[in-house]
């Protein structure tokens, strides 16, 4: 059986969730591999959520939020950016690989950008293969 990546996407309610919505309503195609989880702000994405997604078998995790400067809560996404940088090092040292995590800034109007980045990310994960934790674990 060919490998279909399972991707978890954490979306910010005020922007990327709208973008995903827009991509849907304007019939822009993007792969069905993403499972979307909505947050009120990307700043609410606790690094643990990302870890947990990987531990439970996600092949890739996407974090998305408003463009820098556009966060509804002013600086929520600054924190996201810092955590993202930190998590990348962590995943790399752990051996899961930093490539499996992606941060994307995406406003509510950028339906196309959202669809494109999901597509690109899915392809990247497809090339990387399944989450190495799954092989030993389950």
């Amino acid at each position, binding site marked *: 059986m060919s490998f279909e990546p399972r991707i978890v996407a954490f979306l910010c309610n005020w922007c990327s969730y709208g973008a995903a919505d827009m991509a849907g309503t304007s019939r822009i195609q993007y792969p069905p591999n993403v499972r979307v989880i909505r947050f009120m702000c990307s700043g609410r994405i*606790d*690094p*643990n959520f990302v*870890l*947990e997604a990987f*531990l*439970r078998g996600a092949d890739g995790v996407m974090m998305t939020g408003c463009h*820098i400067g556009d966060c509804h809560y002013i*600086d929520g996404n*600054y*924190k996201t*950016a*810092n*955590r993202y*940088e*930190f*998590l990348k*090092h*962590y995943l*790399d*040292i*752990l*051996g*899961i*690989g930093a490539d499996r995590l992606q941060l994307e*800034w995406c406003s509510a109007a950028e339906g196309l950008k959202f669809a494109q980045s999901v597509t690109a990310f899915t392809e990247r994960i497809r090339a990387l293969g399944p989450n*190495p*934790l*799954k*092989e*030993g*674990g*389950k």
Partner: protein
Amino acid sequence: MSECFWGWSMREDLRKNGESGGFVSSLIESLIGDYDRVISVRKTGTVFEGKVVDLKDSSDVKGIQGALHSLCINMSAYIKKGMRTAIVLKPCDAKAVIENMKRNHVDRGDVLLIGLNCGGTLSPVNTMKMLDVEYELRPDEVVKEEISKGNLIFFTEDNEFSKSIDELEESGYGRRESCRYCNYKIPSVCDIACGNWGTPAGGKVTFVEIFTQKGEQAVRSAVEMGFVSVEAPSEKLVMVRSKINSSMKKLARSWKGKVLDPIMELSPIDRLNYITNTLSPCIGCYACRKACPVCNCTGDCKCLQMDPDDVLPIPQYHAVRLLHLMESCIGCGNCTDVCPVDIPLARLHQLFAKAYEDRTGYKPGMSADDVPPLSRGDIPEGH
């Protein structure tokens, strides 16, 4: 700012019996009353047995153990927020205090940190076994131990026994693993650092380096009140001290190369398997968190909220701890010491912390003004 002295106690008994002239004992004696708590370690049996004491008057000073080399107590746990505390500690304890300052668990203004240089600590039970096997000594015969010129020396009443530390460590004795690759030997984040590196042989003095104004004040008033006496050290011996320091650091680097680098050099998948397998015997007792000096979350901290029965390839508790400690693990080794199933936890946490340090230059425990990466609120580069 840094100034160096030789110092010694003015109390005859302390100068004679105290290690290195009893400077530290007398210094803290002078601080009783100035601080709410004056904390150090007292010997309660052999040199391998002792406990922390809160000194209340001069009579408490006797038996204070200057070198904490074979007790491995986490001193930072004894600082309580809001209590003005003067405390004697090792370099890793001092780093832990700095980490706690960053997270608002300790106020810089409240504490006087009297650091002791440290070439590494010995786990007491293992050392007692080593004494028996390698040195053929009984623990109660030993009056003092010292690491000097690559040798581990035990002193009895009238003799000294010395062995190469490298050989001992090859056979599983000697310093704790985390101390072998620890490269912070002189606690420069303290107010004062004391030690016997750079002192004349048999001189019964302590080499004192002062880093802060508060430290200077403490020493000056101890001198003025007649507790201690100081003099300028000889140029030559100051050099000797820094040479010892750098050779210790070199040794630490080579140990890091032996212990941590091979794991880092594994392929990602092998490294992942190594980590997963190493953690697999964990029984979820959470002793490692309890022992960790930088894990001061109170109440509902994240790592404890996980369902321990959730069978994931890496227990979530550890996944969180590895993450949080990547920015704060100061490599004290307490977690390894207390794990009932002997998981080399410090090795794992240091693997992350050291690799992170190599990549970003962020060093935990070095300055209370640093903002921990996970708490940063600025826009990072490239965003």
